């Protein structure tokens, strides 16, 4: 079962444009763009994007936007100060929504977190790390980048183990993932708020029903594994 995600991207400038378009390319998202400048509005219109205007200084104009409780809010205004102001306003208006904001420095990232943003994407920090990865680990970095820019076919998949699965009661070390051409990388710990636990720290625990394991591999191999082991693709994927 796949849920459609409602996403509102604020801003359609240098950052917002590429973010909105990336989100729109995903098939299970429903995107609306909200802008506060006429120029960006025109560009969005030309790109045939579902666009609305808002006034940063008027809470009412933000409330008029069609924002539900599950809607994810992306703050991507070009101006740092405006972006912070927007995040702060949105958090005030929408207490429980998931807010993601972009930042171009660690100082701003801290401020955004203080303003109540759930996740901060630090543009230059990520890029700088990517460069280090390219220099230090060219092969691994290419592999890693492939997940982000989809230059290879390998994907991450979360698999829920259902009742009656042949995996139930087996230790992790007893499961032959290699036979399916997939790699086991971790589990979701449901007891601790769906925390992802890397296989690199996990003990050789026994798999029980309701567990969620995370594997990497080609889509078809993962599906074969999922069917054969009596699991199901995690519901929020």
């Amino acid at each position, binding site marked *: 079962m796949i849920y459609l*995600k409602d996403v509102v991207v604020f801003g359609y400038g*240098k*950052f917002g444009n*590429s*973010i909105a*378009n*990336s*989100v729109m390319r*995903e098939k*299970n*998202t429903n995107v609306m763009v909200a802008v506060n400048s006429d120029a960006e509005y025109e560009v969005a219109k030309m790109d045939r994007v579902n666009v609305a205007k808002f006034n940063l200084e008027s809470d009412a104009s933000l409330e008029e936007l069609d924002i539900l409780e599950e809607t*994810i809010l*992306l703050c991507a205004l070009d101006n740092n100060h405006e972006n912070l102001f927007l995040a702060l306003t949105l958090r005030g208006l929408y207490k429980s929504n998931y807010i*993601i904001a972009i930042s*171009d*420095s660690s100082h701003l990232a801290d401020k955004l977190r203080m303003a109540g943003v759930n*996740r901060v*994407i630090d*543009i*230059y*920090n*990520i*890029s*700088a*790390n*990517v*460069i*280090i*990865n*390219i*220099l*230090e*680990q*060219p*092969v*691994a970095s290419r*592999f*890693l980048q492939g*997940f*982000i820019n989809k230059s290879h076919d390998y*994907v*991450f998949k*979360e698999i829920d183990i259902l009742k009656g699965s042949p995996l139930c009661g087996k230790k992790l*070390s007893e499961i032959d993932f*290699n036979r399916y*051409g*997939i*790699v*086991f990388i971790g589990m*979701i710990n449901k007891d601790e708020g769906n925390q*992802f636990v*890397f*296989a*690199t*720290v*996990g003990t050789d625990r026994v798999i029980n029903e309701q567990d969620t394991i*995370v594997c990497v591999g*080609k889509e078809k191999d993962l599906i074969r594994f999922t069917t054969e082991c009596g699991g199901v693709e995690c519901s*929020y*994927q």
Partner: protein
Amino acid sequence: MAKKETKPGFIVSFFLYLANSKKYNNFKNEARELLHNPLNRYKRYIDYILIFLIVTSVAIFIYEVDYKVPDWLEFYAVYITSGIFAIEYLFNFWLYNDIRKEVEREYNDSVLVGRKGKFAKVIFGAVFKKISYIFTPVAIIDFLAIVSAYKTLRVLKIFVMFRFLKLLKHARSIHNFLEVLSDRKFELITLLILLIFVVFVGGISMYIAEGNKNDNINDLFDALYWSFITITTVGYGDISPVTTPGKIISFVIIILGIVMISFATSVLVSAFSEKLNELKEERIAEHISENNSFLIICGYGQIARIFLQQYAKISNKYIILDVDKNRVAQAINDGHNAIADDPSRFVVLNRFYNKNSKITVLALTGSDVENIYISLNAKAVSKDIEVIARASSHKLYNKYMRAGADRIILPNEIASSMMVASIVRPVMYKAINAILNYKDVANMSEIFVSRNCKIIGKSIEEVGFAQYKIVFFGLQNGINGEFKFCPKKDYVLKENDILVILGHKMSIKYFKSINNIGSYI
């Protein structure tokens, strides 16, 4: 087309033969590189050896003035050092100009236009130029340094000093000092002329005023001597004015002396401070290009700053180039090596080029135009230079590719992709974010299977990654091989395989130490 055949004579043929000889040309180029190119990493060692010979031989000659030295030391100081200096002298003479090239040029010109070659004139001109080397100041010093060792000349002790003068050529700091002086030639000569003029005017005035009244001033020379000693503010006091006019002249001379000394000091200080920056930058550039692999980071903006906060912990083999002096000052303040220079200029990147080093240029300025220009410039210096460029938009991707960039970083795209991943594939986002941020639990690492590695010849099952709590993703053979994801368990690891693994920092360290695995980059 009918060609007028001019059969070259023996000497011309000889020079033409040399001009076409690959071996001879290579040898001469290598020699020139080694002796004359300050950026050559071996030249410094030759200089060190020569400095050692100079200092030790001079020390022996000085010791010899009062004491007897053993024969072998004498032999070393006289014959060995002089022999080596003579070889160096001959090499410099040989490298001074290229007769063969001039003969070849004349030959080609004459064949092209079908005239008779004026070889005699060309050869005489070139030989004359070569002989003129002997009369250059450097050659004269070199020559005197060689002959100063011979007993007959050594009697004139001053000759030993010529050997010391040779240090000027090989000790770079002395060389730099002379360069500063020559840079300020105009100011210094003006000052010198002024000094001579004032000394003469002061001396003559003093002679007229006190020539027959002061017991210490017997002739004009005494007066000039007094004038000079006073104007330079040394003031020995052996001659001092005794009359009122003489004392007034002293006032004027002393004031002029102070003015001139301050002037000379300020000229030299300003020249030195200018030169010092230049020298410092030169040293940094030389130092960095001696490494086997290093980074040239172009532009010290936000992204470079964050990059270096991480990278500086891993390696110090990098240099920052930025046109903006404020940003360079900021970089230096942050503890990095930085030079204020324009990386889009050929000469700037070329001075770092060293065919034995692996150079990576990071074009990280905020402007696409600049980054593309830098990428092209780096590739113009050498195709072997790896270029990683930052682009602002995907639309420019092809332009960067055409400019020769090997990898293109799109910060906006990366951020967008990560943002999308965080919404649509949260688990993948968390995993990749943890890996990219170097979290201890999620260290993605590469393992290079070298000849001494204990895992060579073992199958993947035998290596048993799981027992080290390491996740094995896949491998490729050699840096240009194809990546194989999750190979079968019975795959046997061979030399040059590069394995991609994920593990806790400590697990990976332990795994590497147990299996004798070193870093490979």
